[in-house]
């Protein structure tokens, strides 16, 4: 699934994130994963992979209002991995 | 049936309810308890007729909570009980005072044993609320109306210290609506919530801890100090008392509420015997009229503190006088078998006897006045 074109994307307010990781299992296409980056408060941050559908589940489950969700008018073909069916 | 200004015989409970309605009170909530119950009955009957609401609360805790909510929306609201019920209300009384919400609370007390509860805040924390003690139904009618004005003027609760006799005595009164606001205009209730500022960035939070929208954290020091400063201003402005025959008095009797009426009759008899006795009647129990008491006691040999309890107001009398003149208690615990405060002390002759003892420097009997 993570090789599907991104139909949506998110903006993450990294400063406000508390690294609770609730967004990870909430994402239906499983395109959120924890990164190794930390914010100024020391919390580990999530990162987004290709294949977001813009469903907004992450926004619903984030306790710190860290997500802004967009749906792309055209699937972002340029962001898919190349050449693998 | 709307309130009539015609003078007629009215039981105190009814007169007080009518006075509150004349002052614009449109919300009341209460729980039955003697001798407060009839006040609830009258509000229950009359408020719906005036487009208001009266709730039979499930306990005194909810009675004051409901009055809190009503007052927070800007309505003139009241509740009440007797001393025990007031005890239950104290956490809310404290917080309502901090939230600067105007309400009027009636203690139809069982005697005078609730003086400490009324004047020392009664609940947790640093606060006092304004306490007014009428001595008659007629005075209660005026004080009730003034209480709503003062509560709005200061954004502060006002407690009215009534009792069984005021509740159940019928006097000929007329409930004339008194206009306080023309001479003392009230600020608009911008702080009250009505929903309308939702979503504007200026919505309100009527709260007792200094929470502010749009910022984390609170500053209780600043918030509580501001309340204390306001109470200092109230204390300077709202002292009320009556002084009779104090100019030449050698003995000054200090008494409040219904008991003061009996003291008046006693003093009349003592004066007729040639004893120079005066009466100082605090009408505001908080702020206690200390400076006026000092002036009234000037030249007296002795001050006799007359109260129907084990000795509570005497603390404030002694604090005011600071040892400048001896203070002796001439009251005591005195109630009826049901504990409603109809004690043997409520007798002009008995009071005169005790005052006579104090006047002549004789030992005044201590203990139960039966």
């Amino acid at each position, binding site marked *: 699934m993570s090789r599907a074109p991104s139909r949506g994307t998110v903006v993450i307010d990294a400063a406000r994130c508390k690294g609770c990781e609730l967004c990870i299992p909430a994402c239906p296409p499983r395109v959120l994963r924890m990164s190794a980056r930390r914010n100024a408060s020391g919390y580990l941050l999530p990162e987004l992979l290709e294949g977001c559908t813009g469903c907004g589940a992450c926004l619903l489950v984030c306790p*710190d209002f860290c997500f802004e969700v967009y749906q792309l008018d055209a699937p972002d073909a340029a962001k898919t991995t190349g050449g693998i069916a | 049936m709307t309130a009539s200004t015609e003078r007629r015989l009215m039981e105190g409970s009814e007169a007080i309810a009518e006075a509150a309605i004349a002052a614009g009170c449109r919300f009341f909530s209460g729980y039955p308890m003697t001798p407060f119950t009839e006040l609830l009955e009258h509000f229950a009957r009359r408020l719906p007729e005036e487009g208001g609401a009266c709730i039979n609360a499930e306990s005194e805790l909810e009675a004051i909570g409901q009055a809190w909510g009503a007052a927070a929306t800007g309505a003139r609201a009241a509740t009440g009980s007797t001393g025990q019920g007031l005890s239950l209300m104290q956490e809310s009384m404290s917080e309502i005072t901090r939230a600067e919400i105007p309400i009027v609370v009636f203690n139809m007390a069982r005697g005078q044993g609730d003086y400490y509860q009324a004047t020392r805040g009664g609940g947790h924390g640093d606060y006092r609320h304004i306490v007014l003690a009428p001595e008659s139904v007629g005075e209660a009618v005026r004080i009730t109306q003034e209480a709503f004005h003062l509560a709005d003027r200061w954004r502060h609760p006002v407690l009215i210290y009534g009792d069984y006799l005021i509740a159940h005595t019928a006097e000929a009164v007329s409930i004339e609506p008194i206009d306080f606001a023309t001479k003392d205009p009230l600020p608009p209730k911008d702080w009250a919530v009505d929903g309308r500022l939702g979503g504007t960035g200026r919505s309100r939070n009527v709260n007792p801890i200094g929470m502010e*929208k749009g910022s984390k954290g609170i500053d209780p020091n600043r918030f509580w100090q501001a309340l204390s400063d306001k109470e200092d201003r109230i204390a300077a402005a709202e002292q009320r008392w009556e002084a009779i025959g104090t100019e030449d008095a050698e003995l000054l009797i200090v008494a409040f509420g219904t008991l003061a009426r009996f003291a008046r009759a006693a003093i009349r008899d003592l004066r007729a015997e040639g004893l120079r006795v005066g009466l100082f009647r605090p009408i505001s129990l908080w702020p206690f009229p200390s400076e006026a008491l000092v002036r009234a006691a000037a030249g007296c040999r002795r001050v006799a503190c007359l109260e129907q309890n084990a000795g509570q107001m005497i603390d404030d009398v002694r604090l005011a006088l600071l040892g400048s003149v001896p203070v002796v208690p001439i009251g005591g615990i005195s109630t009826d078998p049901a504990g409603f405060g109809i004690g043997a002390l409520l007798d002009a002759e008995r009071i005169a006897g005790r005052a006579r003892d104090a006047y002549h420097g004789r030992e005044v009997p201590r203990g139960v006045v039966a």
Partner: protein
Amino acid sequence: MSGDRDAEGVGAGDPLRVVPTDAPPSGACRRKGSFTPSLTLMGEHDLCPGCGEPLALRQILDSIEALGQAQRAIGVVGIGCYTALTSLMDVDLIQALHGRAPSVATGAKRMRPECLLFTLQGDGDMVNEGLQEVIHTAARGENVTCILLNNGVFGETGGHMTATTVLGQRTKNSIEGRDARLHGHPILIGDLLARLDGTAYVARASVHDAAGVARTRRFLDRAFTSQLKGQGFSFVEILTMCPTGWFIPTAEGPGYLDRELGAVHEVGELKKDGVLVER
């Protein structure tokens, strides 16, 4: 870490492209959801990582706005961790004492019947301290909506047993797990209130996953609508995560909520239009 979750569906050797998330997309797009609900002044708060209460708050505020009640809503807030969220909420509020929000809401509604009155209370607040208040407010059919944030603990004091704590749940004052012989049984407040004639709408939801959050929103919409129709008392109980008060890792919060609390305090609509729902 969740490293093991990111390899699904990708064949060996595929690079996983990380998408930048620090700015909105440059191409043509529609914003589907903003950071904070519009009835909020800011998003910063000091509640714990993984706390479920802000999830419920978002749905409450969005529901009020969608129903056109932003300029008519008055919230009465109890005392608990959620009290701190009042700084964020851009609706008129009255701060009440622990357990005492229903009576304050009652007085306010009687004087402002045109307003949408709701309470926001935790389980310690509503079901311990304020049990009498909420029951009588419901029995009288007061036309207000009481909202319960139920995480089965007193969160603000550090994780102590409440009337809704489930049997076996460890808290600081039931450290071996709630034992019926020592600590009695939990109170299922939604079920209790549904049986009172004054209640019109009663529902219980849970924010342990996105579907649960969406369901929470639907129940809130129905509860507020019930108040707007003047049907009587409405009640929404929202189960929320409290990993701190449950002494579990944050990421295990949703699973614990669904499994442990959800098994006892069952999600669903218990009463609609004044009629008990067959369950």
